């Protein structure tokens, strides 16, 4: 009996819509007003068609591959990608501040894009192993190890954005049993971080003190909770008071600027303001780098992005008619800031429709992941969904000015071969695994 391909056509259709819409927007953002030939391969919009073609070919190959191949070769693929990252670190040249690309002729390959795919496979393979669960120190350490190795290598390439994406695997681990408290802790720390930048440290500590006293009073009969309250308060206070140090020492100047810009802080004034405040570790002058800060306009990208999106109003200017887009006012508009084109040319109505389609696709992936019968497929599915979601969240949040500028692409939309191919591989590998689930069932019964 011949095996049918029970592929999830809804996801495929959403994928095709997004890819084609992406190509349209790249064309709009990248072509000049007059005489723009669609298949001009010297331009990015022309090249994107090549990437779409290559992606289609790879998707076809994946669908023809036996599903067992992915399970079988997971660690191999992981090893190869880790190897590539190491070679890149040793030999790669810096481009745009990062050591992230292999140059092959005129084409550039970004292994960190494929590292996500490999990590998803490796994590799925490990957790899908016989009698392995996300429990016990050893297993948990191995899981984090699988994630941290490529993340650290990407970070060493100075590609912070791509490295951050590996944080999305926390969501997968959450699904596999990681306590929700860790996520809450993460959100809590982020909140404290933002508040500390916005408000004087002592105000926040004072507020926390009141909350802590109330908490302890309320649970005065439970010793454990009293201890918890005291520990959380003490740790938070320490975090707050040392944040200046963390901020100034661990983050690079441009990262500091981007965060401050997102929070509407005047870069120059921020440091003078913070220097007057009480803090455990005083910010040293050499970290501030004021001169460099005032020279570059770090708010430019975001400001232009907001203007572009705002120019769209209800219905937008229509395809290829965005004036801001055509004027090329937003840097990197065909890659990381592709959402500006959507905002300007399709307006509020088109943008929300796009968000809906995109979130529907991600939701569908999570839904498909949950229905998997074997853990390998499920972990891989959640990884796929989480990675795409993380990119989506950061990328659009950045374009809308609610998150700091982190240069990562919008999957299936932003220009770039490595990105489109690796995300297509990720999605269709999962769809292949999902299709196989149906085959498995049909064989069983």
């Amino acid at each position: 009996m011949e095996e049918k391909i029970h592929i999830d056509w809804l996801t495929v259709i959403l994928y095709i819509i997004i890819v084609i819409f992406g190509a349209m927007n790249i064309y709009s953002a990248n072509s000049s007003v007059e005489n723009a030939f669609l298949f001009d391969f010297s331009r990015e919009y022309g090249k994107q068609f090549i990437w779409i073609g290559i992606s289609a070919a790879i998707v076809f190959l994946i669908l023809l591959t036996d599903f067992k191949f992915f399970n079988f070769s997971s660690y191999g693929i992981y090893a190869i990608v880790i190897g590539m990252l190491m070679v890149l670190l040793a030999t790669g040249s810096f481009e745009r501040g990062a050591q992230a690309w292999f140059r092959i002729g005129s084409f550039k390959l970004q292994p960190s894009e494929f590292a996500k795919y490999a990590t998803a496979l490796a994590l799925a393979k490990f957790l899908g192993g016989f009698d392995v669960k996300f429990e016990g120190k050893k297993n948990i350490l191995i899981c984090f190890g699988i994630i941290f190795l490529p993340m650290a290598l990407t970070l060493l390439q100075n590609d912070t954005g791509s490295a951050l994406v590996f944080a999305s695997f926390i969501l997968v681990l959450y699904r596999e049993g990681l306590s929700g408290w860790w996520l809450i802790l993460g959100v809590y720390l982020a909140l404290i971080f933002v508040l500390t930048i916005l408000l004087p440290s002592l105000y926040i500590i004072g507020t926390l003190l009141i909350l802590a006293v109330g908490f302890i009073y309320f649970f005065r009969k439970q010793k454990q909770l009293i201890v918890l309250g005291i520990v959380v308060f003490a740790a938070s206070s320490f975090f707050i008071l040392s944040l200046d140090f963390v901020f100034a020492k661990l983050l690079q100047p441009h990262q500091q600027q981007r965060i401050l810009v997102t929070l509407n802080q005047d870069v120059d004034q921020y440091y003078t303001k913070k220097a007057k405040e009480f803090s455990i570790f005083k910010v040293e002058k050499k970290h501030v780098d004021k001169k460099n800060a005032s020279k570059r306009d770090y708010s430019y990208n975001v400001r232009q992005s907001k203007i572009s999106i705002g120019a769209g109003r209800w219905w937008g200017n229509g395809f290829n008619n965005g004036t801001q887009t055509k004027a090329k006012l937003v840097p990197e508009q065909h890659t990381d800031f592709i959402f500006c084109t959507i905002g300007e040319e399709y307006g509020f109505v088109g943008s929300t429709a796009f968000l809906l389609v995109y979130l529907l696709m991600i939701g569908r992936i999570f839904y498909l992941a949950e229905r998997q019968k074997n853990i390998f497929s499920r972990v891989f599915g959640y990884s796929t969904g989480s990675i795409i979601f993380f990119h989506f969240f950061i990328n659009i949040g950045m374009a809308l000015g609610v998150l700091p500028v982190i240069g990562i692409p919008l999957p299936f939309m932003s220009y770039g071969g490595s990105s489109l191919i690796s995300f297509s591989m990720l999605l269709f590998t999962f769809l292949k695994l999902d299709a196989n689930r149906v085959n498995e069932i049909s064989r069983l019964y």
Partner: protein
Amino acid sequence: MEKSGRLYVFIGVLVLVGVIFTVRLFFLQIVDTSNYYKAQSYGSNEIVIHPSRGTIVDRNGKLMVFNDAIYDLMVVPEKAKNFDKAYLCRELGIDTAEFNKRLKKASRYNIKEPAVIYKSLSKELYTRMQEILYQFPAFYIETKIDRRYNINGAAHLLGYMGEVSEKQLKEDKYYRPGDIKGISGIEKAYEIYLRGKKGRKVVLVDKFSKQQGSFAGGKFDSLPIPGQNIVSAIDMDLQQFGEELLKNKIGSIVAIEPATGEVLAIVNSPNYDPNLLVGQQRDKNFNSLLLDPRKPLFNRALKSPYPPGSTFKTVQALIGLNEGVLHSYTKYPCRGGYHMGSITVGCHPHASPLELERSIAQSCNAYYCNVYRSIIDNPKYSSVQDGYTQWTKYLNSFSLGMKTGIDLPEESKGIVKQSQYFEKIFGKNWRSSNVISLSIGQGEVGLTPLQMANVSATIANRGFYYTPHVVRSIGDNNFVPAEFKVKHRTMVAPEFFDTVVAGMAKVTQPGGTAWRCSIEGIDICGKTGTAQNPHGDHHSLFIAFAPRDNPKIAICVVVENGGAGAAYAAPIACLMIERYLATDKTQPSKKPDMLKRMLEANLAGAAIYQLPGKDPAPAAGTKDTTAKKKPAPAALPVKKK
């Protein structure tokens, strides 16, 4: 599987993110319109296309004023940041201080609005700027229109162009800083017709200010509408001839076509070449003209009231006739002047007594002292004051003491005093003897050359005039403003004019004051005037029209310090009439000697002494001291020829 419920946490997070992004989008795109307006101003650059300004031709279709393109370097002050100022200054050839000054001036009105920073780039500079301007996104070149003239005179008439003032910018939103508009003359009066309508092209510019094409598919673009061409009433040949005749003299000529009120020529001397007030040197030239003690910018024909002298007798005769106190047969004796108590108004020797026509031809002062007294002392009025007031009403009906309404800016209404004025000087019950000098056009009366020419036209028409106008028609459809066709009647009934016309005809006949100026074959009706002038030699005046029947031209000539009316004004007027009436302009004058004398006469030196900063001319020493005193009204001893 106990963790499968966590799918809903994932779905919940997706929904939450979707809602946050949608709200944010709503805020950016719908609530906060500032982004939208920033986008409007940011990605596009509006390029103004200046329309070509209307040309001006003379009544015979000869081109007087036309256009040439000039290139201005414009700056958008708001964007003029972080550029290599030293480099740009070096290329423009101005120092940084000057550049900063101009930039500051450009920013004064509105920093978002483009303004001129360097006017009229030379051809070389224009080419150079085109090469380097891509490095200066805040700067661009705008093509504007500058005027060129086919005539080196008529400057007061045509007017000049200049940059709009800040006040005008606020009043009329059409203009932007650095635009040029008509400041005087026809250029000012007909600005709204001549300027046309600016067009604009909105081009998309990228972040390097590189043009990316038409904005929004040219939706906001508009073509400039060229200004309307104007047909002037001026006869360019006559205008230039008049300027030749007045060369080296100070004075003014106004010629009007009586049947239409069309102004044929307005000549002022000193004059200036209108070509001085265009191009790079404009401001420099303007300043030197402004500081020139001869006041070449001053439009004497419209703004300078002269005592009309004996030319005024024509008006006095008409009023007298209409009031019934004078008849064509009325005779008054003249014994070397008019004597009344201590007052004597002198007169030159002539036969006596004279009737009305010959009193005009020989210009008897005593005759008009009697006429004037009979007008204002008329018993039908309760007092001299009422009689005087009635007399001023007559003058007003000739548009004397009020503006003629000519279609040019800055006209003076001349001097005609109210009776109250004399009360302050002579007390409440002043008498006709106090104002006796008015009878011969001296004292408290001043008429502009335009007003005198209009009087001449009114007499030529036997009792009416059209508002003088220098423009014949506007635009391709030959639009003529309605006010040009309104007939203004004087208070003097038409039947009284013939006697005065007959008297004026005798002026150029043997025995008349200007008979030596007569030109064979032309019936010139005129009246000489020799106006006493406290500053120097008498002003030479002449009003005239010709031919006697169906007059084609009415004229007034004033030559300052020219002496007797027959000395300069009358010959010039007659030569002008001859020239205008001649069908062939190349035909030599029938009075070549007179023409030669007029062209060669140099009277400018006689006037120099009254100018500040110059050494008194020798003529000043010969003046009697009384002449320099301020004239005591009415009591002025008058000597007339």
